[in-house]
């Protein structure tokens, strides 16, 4: 006990501690009991994030979050978009197998369905702490729906999706062949709900005719392509990790499946590259507000986000790693997916924030607002996002253990 007060000893302990921690992390990948340690840490992070979130709720979001009336949407909305689009992507890619019956996509289906549920729940949790009155939503969404509002459609469709997907997952768990048809139908329904919901989420941005940067049919379409790309990322990331934990030998069907996912991923990455390029090129011949936002995005405060994270981590590195791997080397594909995950998160952040940074009255040379507004996420917002990521990680780990590596194939 007295040793702990000695600074030298503490220092040594800290270094050994970090060593132990690192080895534990590596050990975890081989499926030892470090697994429980990681689940514990994830749970702890979730708990701390929950404390932050509840604290923010009590102090009021105006004080807790770095949001202003000019920029009312911050990284919480980005986080929501990130999670629900990952969920959509998982649903879209896995449904090629279990809804449309393509044999080579079947092995990934079960894990994808589970993770799709987990990520959509994480997304809902994040938005719960962004809405000022989340409980009123439950009442007025039903009693006073505004059918012209994309938010309404998006919320309702994602709710429906969650319901159908949960049912489908239950049926998959029962592993009864006579339910196969029913679960396939449920899968189809949830796929339709999911695609409609994601494009509506895009339309939430795309239909704001007061915001030049977002306005237009671009974002709803972009979101579907982007969702598919992040779905592929998630499948490769989590399947790889799952197999590391259970140390199972990957059978040929699964390998083929991941290769197919990799090919689809490369396709969608290419599509996203086109989307990004043309978004920028068309933007520069547009209105002044859009040009200002684009300039800030490409050369201003968000240049690092754009060039390093979005273009580098999100698009180019995964694309080239995929090409190098020849869609065969799973280790390289996994590394690609790690990069892509980071990149995709920044894509979402930039999409949401850059759309709002140009001041409403910039064209009037107003001294009250700078032309480019600034937004810095507060620790509360960051912690909620970190908590949601930890929740996904925890749910994934627990899922691997409880559902035994999502082994049984869907027939």
């Amino acid at each position: 006990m007295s040793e702990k007060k000695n600074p030298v000893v503490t220092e040594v302990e800290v270094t050994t501690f970090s060593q132990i921690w690192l080895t534990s992390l590596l050990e975890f990948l081989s499926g030892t009991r470090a697994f429980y340690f990681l689940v514990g840490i994830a749970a702890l992070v979730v708990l701390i994030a929950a404390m932050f979130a509840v604290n923010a709720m009590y102090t009021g979001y105006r004080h807790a979050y770095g949001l202003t009336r000019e920029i009312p949407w911050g990284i919480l909305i980005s986080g929501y978009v990130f999670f629900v689009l990952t969920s959509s992507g998982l649903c879209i890619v896995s449904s090629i197998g279990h809804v449309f019956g393509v044999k080579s996509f079947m092995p990934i289906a079960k894990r994808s369905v589970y993770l799709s549920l987990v990520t959509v729940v994480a997304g809902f949790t994040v938005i719960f702490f962004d809405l000022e009155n989340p409980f009123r939503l439950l009442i007025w969404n039903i009693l006073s729906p505004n059918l012209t509002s994309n938010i309404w459609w998006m919320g309702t469709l994602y709710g429906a999706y969650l319901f159908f997907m949960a049912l489908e997952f239950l049926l998959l768990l029962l592993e009864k062949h006579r339910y196969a048809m029913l679960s396939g139908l449920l899968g189809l329904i949830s796929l339709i709900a999911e695609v409609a919901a994601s494009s509506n989420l895009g339309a939430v941005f795309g239909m704001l005719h007061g915001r030049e940067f977002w306005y237009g049919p671009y974002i709803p379409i972009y979101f579907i392509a982007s969702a598919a790309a992040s779905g592929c990322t998630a499948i490769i990331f989590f399947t790889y990790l799952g197999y590391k934990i259970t140390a199972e030998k990957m059978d040929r069907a699964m390998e083929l499946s991941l290769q197919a996912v990799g090919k689809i991923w490369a396709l969608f990455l290419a599509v996203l590259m086109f989307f990004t390029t043309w978004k920028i090129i068309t933007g520069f011949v547009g209105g002044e507000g859009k040009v200002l936002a684009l300039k800030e995005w490409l050369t201003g405060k968000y240049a690092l986000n754009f060039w390093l994270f979005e273009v580098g981590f999100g698009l180019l590195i995964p694309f080239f790693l995929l090409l190098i791997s020849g869609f065969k080397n799973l280790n390289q594909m996994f590394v690609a997916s790690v990069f892509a995950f980071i990149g995709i998160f920044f894509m979402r952040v930039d999409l949401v924030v850059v759309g709002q940074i140009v001041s409403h009255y910039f064209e009037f040379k107003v001294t009250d607002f700078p032309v480019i507004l600034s937004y810095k996420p507060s620790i509360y917002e960051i912690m909620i996002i970190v908590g949601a990521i930890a929740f996904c990680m925890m749910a994934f780990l627990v899922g691997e253990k409880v559902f035994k590596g999502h082994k049984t194939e869907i027939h």
Partner: protein
Amino acid sequence: MRKVKILIGTLILLLSFTGIAFVSEKNKGESVKLEEPQEVIYYESEQFGGPEIVYVKPVRGVLFSHKKHVGELGFPCESCHNSLFEMQALKSQENPDFKMEALYQGKYCGACHNGQAAFASNTKCATCHIGVKGLKEYMRKLASKEKK
């Protein structure tokens, strides 16, 4: 024992991280609220013969600039003092007739700002009316000067 150590270590790390984040967040504090707008007598430089005066009555934020009138345009003191204005700054805003009507009749600023000697009093409002925003700017200037 090792596991316990790891767990405790991680706990402490996380808690200290959250603690630091929490404290730094709390210390940021609210932005300083500007006090109620008050009249300002601000000496830009002695050589202009007089201060920049911001009236707050009957409406807030009307600037008379010695810098402009004496420094740039070169009027002697006698052109206004003590016939139109007393030497004491802000004295005239106590007068009940210190209004735009009086200016239109040729009193106060209206003696020159009649459309002939200088632009008429009923035009170019925002030239002299710097408003509460202008007033606050001068208050900030004054406060930072007093600090020095």
